[in-house]
């Protein structure tokens, strides 16, 4: 027993030394350059190799599919091709062949065909439910999780896949976890220290420095490659930055290139610790759960924040929930009612390297972060759009839709009016009532019209 102890101590010493070496490499080669915003080029090389490998894999799979025709092709196209006619057009067409001379209006039994066809089309494929699950890839990117119909194709492909698993779980994952821990600890310690200083320009400058360096470290922790476009439109103090929401990582992406005041609910646990220390060094807007229900209180706090021109621009995600980055869903009008200049930002992730979407129904935060850290990389484009303000005669909802369209257009995303809240809630009855009203006017509208106009 005694002879074992020195051996064990020796083993512990070796482990400790290895750990120190590991840590210095990580800090020296990754953390420090990240903090200074310098890139040593490792990520670039990694991405280039990755792109080449995935291209090769795609070709192999396509070749394999040609050889075995029963393999279903992975197509990102829809299942069906829809007609885009309006209710009036479609029902009009249906009625045209009807023997009775209708001249518009009045009911025929074939009207039901329209609703029936639309209903079945929506059962097969609809615009909304697909936004709450990850986007299907055009070709497999060698991750098990995106494996839709993988059948064995070739030895080489399987070996590359196996190698990928090893690299991602045994090399990249520990590295990324280390970076994340370093980054977040630095955030908490740094902001607490800065928080001890009296208010001054120096404090603000230091606070910005701590925040940005932390987010840069975190970005490295995800092998994030971000391309920023139109930096001249960067949000300024006293403004509100709005962006489409795909995941919590959006914050890391945005904060890598600027400092923002975050808005959100107060959490407990680790998040709470981070929130409390962040707010010591510069004002963020954290709401208690009870406060969030009071829309006026929320609006007031935000208004006060942007009125103070020394405070950082607020960062808000008006969709209110994570969407899968193929579309932009309804923007809640709250942020567009408080005045101030809106700085829209469009974020588009490249799903080939890693799916950034957080499906909160399927994964909790921890398993989501693990998935992120075992992806190949996070590659995305970010566009700063020119600032927008509410125009005369435009109400908050119209303004919100205008901003949403601009973001959707820039990011190449589908512009939807549906509420992201449909992820969890039922659709409002009023939409059905609209449909019923529209149809009613097709049956009797003409009669009413004639009645009011009188004989011609």
């Amino acid at each position: 027993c005694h002879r074992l102890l020195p051996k064990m101590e020796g083993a512990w010493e070796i482990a400790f030394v290895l750990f120190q070496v590991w840590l210095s490499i990580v800090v020296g080669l990754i953390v420090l350059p990240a903090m200074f915003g310098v890139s040593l080029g490792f990520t670039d090389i990694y991405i280039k190799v990755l792109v080449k490998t995935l291209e090769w894999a795609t070709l192999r799979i396509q070749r394999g599919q040609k050889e075995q025709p029963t393999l279903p092709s992975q197509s990102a196209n829809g299942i069906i091709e829809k007609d885009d006619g309006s209710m009036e057009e479609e029902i009009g067409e249906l009625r045209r062949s009807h023997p009775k001379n209708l001249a518009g209006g009045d009911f025929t039994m074939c009207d039901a065909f329209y609703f029936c066809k639309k209903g079945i089309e929506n059962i097969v494929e609809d615009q909304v439910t697909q936004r709450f699950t990850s986007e299907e890839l055009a070709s497999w990117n060698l991750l098990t999780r995106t494996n839709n119909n993988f059948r064995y194709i070739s030895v080489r492909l399987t070996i590359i896949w196996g190698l990928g698993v090893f690299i991602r779980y045994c090399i990249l994952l520990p590295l990324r976890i280390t970076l994340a821990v370093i980054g977040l600890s630095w955030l908490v310690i740094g902001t607490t220290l800065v928080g001890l200083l009296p208010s001054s320009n120096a404090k603000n400058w230091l606070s910005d420095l701590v925040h940005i360096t932390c987010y840069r470290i975190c970005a490295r922790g995800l092998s994030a490659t971000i391309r920023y476009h139109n930096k001249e439109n960067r949000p300024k103090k006293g403004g509100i930055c709005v962006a489409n929401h795909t995941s919590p990582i959006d914050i890391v992406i945005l904060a890598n290139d600027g400092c923002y005041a975050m808005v959100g609910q107060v959490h407990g646990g680790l998040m709470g610790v981070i929130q409390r220390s962040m707010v010591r060094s510069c004002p963020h807007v954290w709401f208690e759960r009870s406060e969030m229900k009071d829309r006026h209180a929320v609006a007031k706090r935000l208004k006060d924040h942007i009125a103070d021109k020394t405070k950082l621009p607020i960062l808000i995600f008006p969709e209110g929930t994570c969407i899968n980055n193929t579309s932009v869903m309804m923007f809640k009008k709250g942020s567009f009612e408080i005045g101030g200049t809106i700085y829209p930002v469009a974020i588009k992730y490249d799903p080939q390297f890693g799916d950034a979407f957080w499906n909160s129904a399927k994964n909790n935060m921890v398993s989501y972060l693990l998935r992120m850290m075992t992806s190949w990389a996070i590659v995305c484009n970010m566009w700063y759009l020119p600032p927008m303000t509410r125009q005369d005669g435009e109400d908050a909802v119209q303004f919100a839709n205008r901003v949403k369209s601009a973001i959707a257009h820039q990011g190449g995303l589908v512009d939807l009016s549906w509420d992201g809240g449909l992820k969890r809630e039922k659709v409002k009855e009023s939409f059905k009532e609209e449909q019923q009203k529209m149809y009613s006017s097709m049956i009797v509208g003409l009669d009413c019209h004639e009645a009011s106009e009188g004989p011609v």
Partner: protein
Amino acid sequence: MGSRASSLLREEDIEEIKKQTGFSHSQITRLYSRFHSLDKGENGALSREDFQRIPELAINPLGDRIINAFFPEGEDQVNFRGFMRTLAHFRPVEDNEKNKDPTSGEPLNSRTNKLFFAFRLYDLDRDDKISRDELLQVLRMMVGVNISDEQLGSIADRTIQEADTNGDMCISFSEFTKVLEKVDVEQKMSIRFLH
């Protein structure tokens, strides 16, 4: 995401469904993915709530009737076979029907079967007759609160009067077919499935 979904569908099942419905292999696997994504309870069958979760269907005035068409009499769950059988009605009509199984009669997507599907939307109690009451109920679903009872009543009366040839104040399937004989049912009750 449907990544494991296709592995739950066996080749024999796919072949059977192919024979019965006429869908292609890849269409069946894609529709299975869709079925699986709608099946929130992951029990291999869809309930009415699963369908109601599709917002565009929930706001369809005839949404409930369409959903009902998937469920056999008295049942609350529909499995993938049943799902595909119902969807098969909406396949476009082709001239060379490879799937015509001489023992089972007409293919599911024939003009007659498409018309019968629509007939069933109106025929609430499935007694092969559309009564005045049933017609009124369906009309009420389609128009909501926007038309008065009297007006709706007269619309229903007019419709039955035009269609009813045997004087029983109900619309039978053959009367239904006669009234709609000029309507392009093949096109209007078909969906263009890709590949």
